[in-house]
């Protein structure tokens, strides 16, 4: 009897060992995944329940609760307002991520997806998700040429290359641009250079891009700079001047030596751009700095001098210690954009700005407030009055600090937005966009995003989906699945780079 029982003992222990080892193998696999030994981490979220790493889209109201189609079992979340955010937690910091969205689009013409790189001040990195007008042109069979990542769509095939089109841009036909600068062809035969200097005495925080037009004059602009040292980092300063897409001049200034968050302001002096003998046309001046740098004053000989897309107004008591004699009076800006985002990060910045006389109540900190034009016919520009400043203002278009300085460098070109109509266009030129792929009655779109420059340890990431006009037009986007593919150097490469030097 005992012998018979022992006969069974051996296989029983083998089975027991297998039962115990199966979870061990699973733990080993989870460890490889958690430590990103091969440099990859893949997370898929299909809205079927809660996930430890991926939270559903928020805030409530703009994003509805998770839902399930009882017939097909499909789970999804509907987006009916914007912007919405999705928080993702990863165990390691990664270099980049490819996000694949599986969604259905109920007529929303313009949608972008990206990453919040900084919460305070708000900074986002958006990539195109679904640009309806480009999809429509492709579907209607417009001729398509691609060169160096730039794609040209033509209603009638007139140009044989992108370069030909850029060199001989037609002036009497509608051109739509998306993520591509074409405005440098702007010329104005009626322009006469003014001897009057222009002083912009509004203090601006962080990087800005300025556009100016010159004709038979010297390009001259002086930038007074201050380093407020509020973040732990070095704050080098670079000012680049572009003609077309080529840098023609650069001014550099190294950090002030204070890389700590000491909050001790340092006067960094003045950087001057002074270029004579330039051909007539549009020039871009890009101030490449982080948010520790203030542009305390700009003096320029140019009559036409505007900011592009973003202005971060500082003139508020929050910065009184950093800038001596700071004027905290209201600011008037002249904006071209049809959409606008404003945000403040300090209590003293809570206020009620007016855009074309319409009040916009900014009564919460760190929350982006959005405004959208309801006008049938767009004016040349609108007045934005900010009573207390300390506002990050983002738009798509030019922003002037005085009415006289405004000029419409985009007069023949339409920046593609949700309200662009295809029948108004004969050409579309764009970069960084591929039409989504049709899949299971919806679309699949993959968006590559670099995580470089994201504030913090890059383990708590906040993704953003922006769909301007979605609420007003009653559209919705039904997101069925989001897949994140994170990448970084594998463990072996990291070890080699760490210890390779000493061997």
């Amino acid at each position, binding site marked *: *009897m005992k012998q*018979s*029982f022992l006969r*069974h003992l051996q296989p*029983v222990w083998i*089975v*027991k060992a297998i*039962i*115990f080892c199966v*979870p061990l193998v*699973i733990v080993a696999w*989870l460890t490889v*995944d*958690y430590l990103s030994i091969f440099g990859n981490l893949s*997370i898929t979220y299909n809205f079927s329940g809660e*996930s*430890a*790493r991926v939270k559903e889209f928020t805030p409530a109201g703009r994003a509805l609760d998770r839902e399930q189609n009882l017939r097909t079992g499909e789970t999804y979340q509907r987006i009916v307002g914007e912007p919405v955010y999705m928080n993702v*937690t990863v*165990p390691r910091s990664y270099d980049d991520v490819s996000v694949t969205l599986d969604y259905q689009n109920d007529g929303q013409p313009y949608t972008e997806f990206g990453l919040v790189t900084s919460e305070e001040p708000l900074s986002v990195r958006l990539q195109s998700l679904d640009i309806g007008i480009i999809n429509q042109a492709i579907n209607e069979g417009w001729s398509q040429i691609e060169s160096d990542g730039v794609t040209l769509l033509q209603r009638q095939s007139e140009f044989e290359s992108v370069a030909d089109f850029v060199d001989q841009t037609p002036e009497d036909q509608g051109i739509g641009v998306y993520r591509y600068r074409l405005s440098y062809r702007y010329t104005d035969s009626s322009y006469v250079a003014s001897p009057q200097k222009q002083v912009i005495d509004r203090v601006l925080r962080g990087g800005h891009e300025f556009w100016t037009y010159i004709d038979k004059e010297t390009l001259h602009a002086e930038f007074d700079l201050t380093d407020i040292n509020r973040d732990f980092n070095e704050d080098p300063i670079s000012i680049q001047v572009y003609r077309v897409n080529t840098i023609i001049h650069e001014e550099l200034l190294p950090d002030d030596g204070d890389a700590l968050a000491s909050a001790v302001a340092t006067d960094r002096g003045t950087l001057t751009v002074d270029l004579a003998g330039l051909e007539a046309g549009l020039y871009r001046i890009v101030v490449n700095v982080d948010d520790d740098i203030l542009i305390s004053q700009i003096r320029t000989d140019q009559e036409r001098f505007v900011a592009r897309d973003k202005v971060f107004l500082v003139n508020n008591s929050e910065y009184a210690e950093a800038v001596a004699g700071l004027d905290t009076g209201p600011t008037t800006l002249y904006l071209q954009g049809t959409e606008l985002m404003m945000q403040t990060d300090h209590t003293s910045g809570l206020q009620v700005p007016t855009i074309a006389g319409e009040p916009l109540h900014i009564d919460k900190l760190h929350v982006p407030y959005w405004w959208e034009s309801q006008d049938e016919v767009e004016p040349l520009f609108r007045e934005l009055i900010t009573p207390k400043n300390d506002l990050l203002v983002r738009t798509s278009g030019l922003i002037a600090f005085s009415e006289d300085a405004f000029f419409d460098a985009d007069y023949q070109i339409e920046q593609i937005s949700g309200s662009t109509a295809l029948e108004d266009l004969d050409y579309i030129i764009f970069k960084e966009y591929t039409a989504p792929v049709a899949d299971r009655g919806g679309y699949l779109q993959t968006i590559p995003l670099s995580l470089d420059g994201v504030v913090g340890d890059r383990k708590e990431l906040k993704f953003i989906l922006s769909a301007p006009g979605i609420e007003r037009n009653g559209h919705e986007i039904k997101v069925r699945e989001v897949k994140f593919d994170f990448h970084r150097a594998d463990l072996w490469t990291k070890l080699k780079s760490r210890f390779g030097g000493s061997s």
Partner: protein
Amino acid sequence: MSSQYLTRKVIGELLAFTTRTLVFWYILAVFIEMVLPGFVSSHLNLDMFLWSAIIAALFSLLIDPSSLFPKQSA
């Protein structure tokens, strides 16, 4: 001892062992999850461990209750 009895004994013992293993891994997984959020739950449903353990325990009790609660020898 009949072969039927032996089979019941072996299956009961294996089910009891499975129950103990699953409870062990469930407790370990909960602990790991507290220290490293998302380590397990990002891929596996933690409750799955517990439900599997309960089902294994029920079958073990049905087949051979003594295997789950063995009598202590004097």
